[in-house]
């Protein structure tokens, strides 16, 4: 967990995109994610996107709302988005903060997310 590992990597898995997120996701990282993901969807398309949050330990309401916007944009571009591997601390934090989570589709593992998108 450090500032240095704030990087966005898009991995192609079948017809889907897997995005592992690590460490502290802040506004800057999420802006990078938005740009990279939407650009990829525009150029190459994808049926589904899995946002793997397994490496994320802290997510505040602002981050979560930004994720909501990214998911909404990707959905408008024809991709289904599933959140995977949300940690207990993040789930408890989001619930305590009363953030709007009605838009989420989430699974415990990346495999389950990919199966859901199949």
């Amino acid at each position: 967990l450090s500032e240095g590992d704030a990087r966005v990597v898009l991995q192609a898995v079948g017809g889907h995109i897997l995005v592992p997120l690590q460490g502290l996701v802040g506004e800057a990282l999420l802006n990078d994610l938005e740009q990279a993901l939407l650009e990829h969807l525009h150029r190459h398309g994808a049926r589904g996107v899995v946002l793997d949050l397994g490496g994320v330990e802290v997510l505040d309401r602002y981050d979560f709302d930004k994720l909501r916007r990214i998911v909404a944009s990707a959905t408008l571009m024809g991709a289904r988005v599933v959140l995977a591997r949300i940690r207990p601390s993040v789930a408890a934090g989001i619930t305590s903060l009363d953030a709007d989570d009605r838009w989420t589709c989430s699974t415990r593992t990346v495999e389950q997310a990919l199966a859901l998108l199949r």
Partner: protein
Amino acid sequence: MKELVQRMRILSEADTVRAVLTVREAASRVGMKAGAGSALATAVSELATNVVKYAGSGRMTLRSLRNRQQPGLEVVVEDYGPGIQDVGLAMTDRVSTGGTLGLGLPGTKRLVDEFELESKPGQGTRIRIVKWG
């Protein structure tokens, strides 16, 4: 027992990331459980982001505590922004006082064990939170 760990300025989004990282590391160093450390870090992330979005600048002071045979951390987040016009309203769930998300203070309070808020319109806001465990 109360000991100063760090004092830092909050001027930008990068500073909020540094503040959260500092709190996470301190929680681990003083022996807090992972869940307590993450809850405090999430609360600090909210408060520091509020400073950047609503006040522009402020500072965080982090102190380690020990009490009741368990470690704890105290975080004071201060800013010199516009202050909160109606503190009672800001502490009511689902009330937005600024952007679309509001300050999220009731949620932040739920994440910690102690929460004190002082705010004077035109002078700024000081929030002190404590997490044990």
